[in-house]
């Protein structure tokens, strides 16, 4: 379970969530957790640019400053749902 989630807005049409974990998770659970987050509408809208359709969303998982994994989604056509999972990279060994 995340201990903290921060939203960064690197671009008008890109969202980046930085998720703090107490311990590494399994490779599959990074993806499934991120997919669950996407179902919440507010997580796919940039509050600073609400009229700009989101192109990419990244979830980066950390334990402290150690990067554990990153999940990348993309919306090829504006407004299309669900967002397409591009790839999940797991940097640290699964438990």
């Amino acid at each position, binding site marked *: 379970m995340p201990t903290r989630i921060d939203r960064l807005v690197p671009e008008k049409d890109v969202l980046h969530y930085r998720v703090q974990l107490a311990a590494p998770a399994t490779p599959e659970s990074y993806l499934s957790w991120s997919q669950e987050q996407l179902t919440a509408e507010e997580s796919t809208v940039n509050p600073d640019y609400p009229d700009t359709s989101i192109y990419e969303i990244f979830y980066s998982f950390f334990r402290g400053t150690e990067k554990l994994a990153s999940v990348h989604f993309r919306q090829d056509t504006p407004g299309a749902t669900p967002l397409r*999972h591009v*790839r999940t990279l797991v940097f640290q060994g699964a438990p």
Partner: protein
Amino acid sequence: MNSRALLTALCSVLVTMVGCSSLYRHSVETDAFSLYGDNDPERLERLASVVETTMDDFDVLFELGEARIPPPRVIYEEDDLSRARIYTSEMRQEGFYLPLLRLVHLSPRHYSNLDNDLHDAERVVRHELAHHFLIQRHPASGSRYWLNEGVACALEAPFVTDEDGQSLAPLYHQWLHEQAHLALQRLGTEKFTAALQELLASGWFGFHQSGSKVRNYALSWAFTYYQLQQIPGTFARRVEVLVARKSQELQFLIPGFLKWLSEDPNRELDALAGQPALRLWTLRTWLNLTQIDGALLLRHLLPLLTDAGTAKDSDGVVALSLLTRLLNRPAIGSLSREQLHDLRSTLAARLTHGTDPEKQEIASTLRRSGYSAGYLRPLVTMLSSQTPDVRVAAARALARLSAKPTITRPSFWTDASPVERAAEVSEWEQWLGRRSSRR
């Protein structure tokens, strides 16, 4: 091979006995090979063309002529994580070869798209088919694991075509060279020699010991490559000599090998780049080296840049892309601050005055560095280019290089109305104006 791979190997034996086509949903059967898999048929078809091209290349390389080697059975499987596009950083087996059954098993990692998947798969296909060709052509090599893996690793690099249209195998493996060089530095001559002796005498289990597996691959490639470079003649002839060498002959070669391996890998790359047919391939490979000797590399790269836009246009564009990759690095050995500044200014000038392919290539390759600010103005100008792909590359580069939020979706820069795009460009120009007035 780990226990999972061993289990797969046993299943593969069973599969071969029962018949591959009855157990896999898709197959491609030709006179030269049979390919089986449960993947989507399109991917299997494309992999079949990679297998076919590799076999054609190896037919020539091993000088088979009219002689044919028995067709291999190739099985292609994806693991569950790869299928879900989840990639872990841990090393894993991506293929194996069972000589008695002529069975090549492929399970390469997958990356972002089909082209990259194939690029990665090609390396694994070449490695495993190299085992097939070597063992079928020289059965005596089957029990010498270092030689088998050494040749297979040497043939992983894609072939390049020389000026006469002939395929050329570079045989060089940058990552394994670095690993072997580091192993010699860390172990010292005595311990390294002992490890090499052990490797030369090792059987399958000794070679695949988990603690020293990477080192064994690295030493196998390095010792094989060193010998191949020493022996004159064609690749087939050189391999024949290599296979025939007795243990005692190998012992005599070790001091010379240690001397070669102790040298900076930049020197080997310098020698390879001196061969015109291998120059571009070597420069690409060189940029993956951990510690690059920038002055040595530029000796081969800069002459290609003078050709950009003239006779060797496409080489010039590739050379600009390579220069961009070099300048993206935070530190480059043997180049002064002034030299770096001049090179970065050259790149910024190409972004302004270069051809569209040059601008697109540089913008697509640029990453954030200490000099990023010098590229921003030309990139903002490129947002108003008449060429849509140049606008897309510029927007993506600006997103990477600056902190100002922008629209990165390619379809915006290709399909949005000129008015919408002009509004975005205007924001950038105002931002640049505010930025320069602050300085």
